[in-house]
């Protein structure tokens, strides 16, 4: 496994004394999509911030394609797709201008765009299917389109590591599928993709790997080994919606298998099998 991103024993303590993250360690290989899953306040944003060097680490270090963070940023290796709430949508800026911002790191100090820059912007617009909107002011777009232009900016940037902060919140199913298809393409091109998400249902579907976080890393590795009911319940504690559809509510024979639904506040994850039969009595919210 060629390693793309190494988070090594990272701890972050904010100035007010809050330990946002403690002894976090995991590795992500090149050409992978990883879901970063955890409740609000579990340190997902802090982890993103430490990968991008926005916060001072009280301990540990982050390595991106073998470079320390600062050098990696200078080399334009990291792209960040922000949450929609972090953007001022009234800002007088056109779609194509936003995407061109992805190219700034490749330009000279006057930020004059050349032919290659325009080609990359064009290509990025095509890949997210937004060519017709290039001259729109960003506030005129729908929720899904807003996500797509910032994804396009990451594409134009042509970086090796892409961090996406909640890309599926407030997005319709069609856009979600488009984004996932695009992320799969990027994975196949050898990018390292880390996606923070509440959307548990889509994790097993399209993330090769999962990192479960709650102020520290609870589990990290391939989705099929990490994304288990036990681990999820540990990560989410009582805040996860949990439904069990077991034997007698499901069918009338004496089959003891049960369907388990776990949901944060978006698509639920559906588990089916014999294990954890004792949770039947707690059907409803955990």
């Amino acid at each position, binding site marked *: 496994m060629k390693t793309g991103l190494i988070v090594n024993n990272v701890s972050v303590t904010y*100035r007010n004394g809050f330990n946002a993250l403690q002894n976090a360690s995991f590795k992500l290989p090149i050409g992978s999509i990883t879901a970063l899953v955890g409740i609000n306040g579990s340190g997902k944003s802090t982890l993103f911030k430490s990968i*991008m*060097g*926005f916060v001072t680490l009280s301990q540990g270090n982050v390595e991106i394609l073998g470079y320390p963070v*600062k050098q990696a*940023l*200078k*080399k*334009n290796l*990291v*792209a*960040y797709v*922000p949450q929609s709430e*972090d*953007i*001022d949508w009234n*800002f*007088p*800026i*056109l779609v194509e*201008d*936003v995407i061109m*911002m*992805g190219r*700034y*790191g490749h330009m000279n*100090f*006057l*930020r004059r765009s050349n032919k290659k820059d325009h080609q990359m912007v064009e290509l990025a617009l095509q890949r997210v299917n937004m060519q017709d909107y290039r001259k729109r*002011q960003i506030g005129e777009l729908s929720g899904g389109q807003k996500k797509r232009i910032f994804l396009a*900016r990451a594409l134009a*940037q042509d970086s090796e590591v892409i961090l996406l902060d909640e890309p599926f919140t407030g997005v319709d199913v069609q856009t979600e599928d488009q984004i996932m298809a695009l992320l799969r393409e990027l994975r196949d091109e050898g990018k390292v993709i880390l996606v923070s998400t509440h959307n548990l249902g889509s994790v097993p579907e399209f993330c090769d790997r999962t990192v479960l976080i709650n102020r520290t890393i609870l589990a990290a590795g391939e989705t099929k080994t990490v994304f288990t009911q036990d681990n999820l319940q540990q990560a989410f504690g009582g805040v996860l919606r949990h439904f069990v559809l077991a034997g007698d509510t499901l069918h009338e024979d004496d089959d003891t298998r049960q369907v388990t639904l776990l949901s944060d506040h978006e698509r639920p994850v559906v588990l089916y099998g014999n294990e954890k039969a004792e949770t039947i009595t707690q059907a409803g919210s955990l």
Partner: protein
Amino acid sequence: MLALFELLSEPFYFGFMQQAFIIVLLLAIPSALLSCFLVLKGWSLMGDAISHSVLPGIVIAYLLAIPYAIGAFVAGISCAIATGYIKENSRLKEDTVMGIVFSSMFALGLVLMTKIESDVHLDQILFGDLLGSSGQDIIEVAGISLLVVLFMVCKGKDLLLFVFDKQHAQAIGLPVRFLHYALLSILSLTIVFSLKAVGMILVIALLIAPGSIAFLLCNSFANMLKVAVLVSCSCSFLGVYISFYLDSAPAPTIIMLMSLLFIITFIQTTQRAKSINLDVPDTQ
């Protein structure tokens, strides 16, 4: 016909009027460029705060016998830095902190002024002396104007990215701290060097009004810059011109023109938004 032409061109015959025209136009350009960034960054009142805060700096500079511009610049920047520091380390919002810092500094300046007889008078700081400006003033304002325009040409795009999406700016390795303080410094410099010529009240207006009018009108940042400069220059020019016939002070006349333009723009843009909403009622 000739008589009418003579009447209309009368303001241009006087040396003091010519100087006033030159100074306001020189100042209108950098302040318009800056105002676009300030309005978008949410720093509109920063100009207000810094221009009030320079007062103690001017008095202390006189006391230490150093050029007043140095004292004023240091005081202006201290205000911005103190605001940032207190905001980071308290629960207060930025506007509150800014209000506390600049009113304290302005008051300090006023108190110092009563004890120290300096060569700068409060009236001059507040209202400027546009019609009594000297060649020296023109050179200073031209210098600062050139500096701001050069800075915008070189770093304007970085600044825009810093204002629009600081996280991305940081992620691609831009020096965001440098940009933050560069913007504050260049703002302070503009204020310091224009204060004596045009006065605090006009500087504050020039640093907010053109950007806000352009913001209402424009979809893209490039257009916003152009409209702001156009608004700023035309109002400044017309303001000085009209003030000659009204026999009013130029600075408030310029501000009144910009206010008028703002009101017209506001009404026009809200009407347009309404009519668009009526045309297509179903576009959520």
